[in-house]
């Protein structure tokens, strides 16, 4: 808890609050921010990669079959992917809490 909220002893700080663990922001579950989530209909998906390249939060990555599944840990539910999908394969549905 202390590490996430930055509450540390001054003795633990490195020079000028240097951060030496690259990319540790990935610990934060920005997925908690959303109220809608994108769902992909694989029947319609043409594996074009638009959702992948248009996602500001790197939610999509290519799997072994060439599809782009979501990593919901990070998805903020902005809906860009659904809007940009050229074959309307992605729908935004209400997040069930």
């Amino acid at each position, binding site marked *: 808890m202390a590490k996430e909220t930055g509450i540390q002893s001054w003795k633990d700080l490195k020079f000028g609050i240097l951060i030496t663990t690259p990319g540790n*922001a990935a610990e934060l579950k920005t997925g908690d921010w959303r109220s809608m989530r994108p769902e992909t209909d694989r029947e319609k998906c043409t594996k074009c*990669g638009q959702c992948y390249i248009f996602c*500001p939060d790197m939610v999509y990555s290519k799997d072994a079959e060439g599809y782009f599944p979501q990593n919901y840990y990070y998805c903020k539910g902005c809906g860009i992917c659904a809007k940009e999908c050229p074959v309307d394969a992605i729908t935004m549905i209400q997040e069930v809490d």
Partner: protein
Amino acid sequence: MGIASDALKNFKGFNLKNMPEVEPVSPGHRACQGCGEVLALRQAMKAIGTNAVVCSATGCMEIITSPYPQTAWRVPWIHVAFENAAAVASGAEAAYKSMNRKGIINQPDVTFIAYGGDGATADIGMQALSGALERGHNMIYFCFDNEAYMNTGIQRSSSTPFGASTTTSPAGKKSSGQSTWKKNMAEIAVAHGAPYVATATPAYPIDLMNKVKKASLVPGPAYIHIYSPCPTGWRCGIDEGIEVARLAVQTKVFPLYEVIDGEYHLSRKVAKPKPITDYFKPQRRFRHLTETEVKYIQDRVDAEYEKLIKKCVVEEKKKEKE
């Protein structure tokens, strides 16, 4: 032949089937939902890769990626102040040049990047940028242009477009939003003689990534002006950022082009330009504009576009064959 054309002779770009996989910026950053600027940053860094040193100005991209104790940066990154990203990068580039030459290190291929928002570039950072371009450091400068000082609350910059309502150029009874035309930073970079200058937007990701890759191959300073949609500041839907950026290109508001050794190349011909009202429609920051104002803007956008076209070389697939 200039130094940029030389360097780009055998350039092989990315395409939809062949996109860079690396993610130098990690998820978990604190950008707003639908932030077009962090998307632009992500795409640009994917094209750069991990052998880079990044110098950031103060602004959205800095705040959202470096909340101590967390960082979204998987490459070395330094933030110093608001107006000096270009100067910090100049120092880092000079350091590596010197240390490599003296044999203190053996890292000759590192890419040096400086970036800032439109405020940090066109306003407070103009001087540092000008100095870096003039001195010819081997670096790339990205301006992530979301057309206002978004991080501090949507205040106007010299890159805010004419007529846009911001918190320091608000539309009111006696004012119609920004009263000056957007400063043309790409032209300023060209005037400095930078061998590679380009405009880009994340709505055209392959175009953006290829331009970034080209910039990294060209020796000397490169400048890329990246139109970055901000739903929060432009007051459009959080899913509409890419569409608005696409409309900016399709209405000629933000033409995509490159200037290679001073030669202009249009990246995307806008054969059937859409009317500017299409561009204004999704954005509440333009809602107050009168018909006269819209006409003025349309005329000026058309005129600026014509000026640009006149400078562009005719596309020469035919010429090459001759």
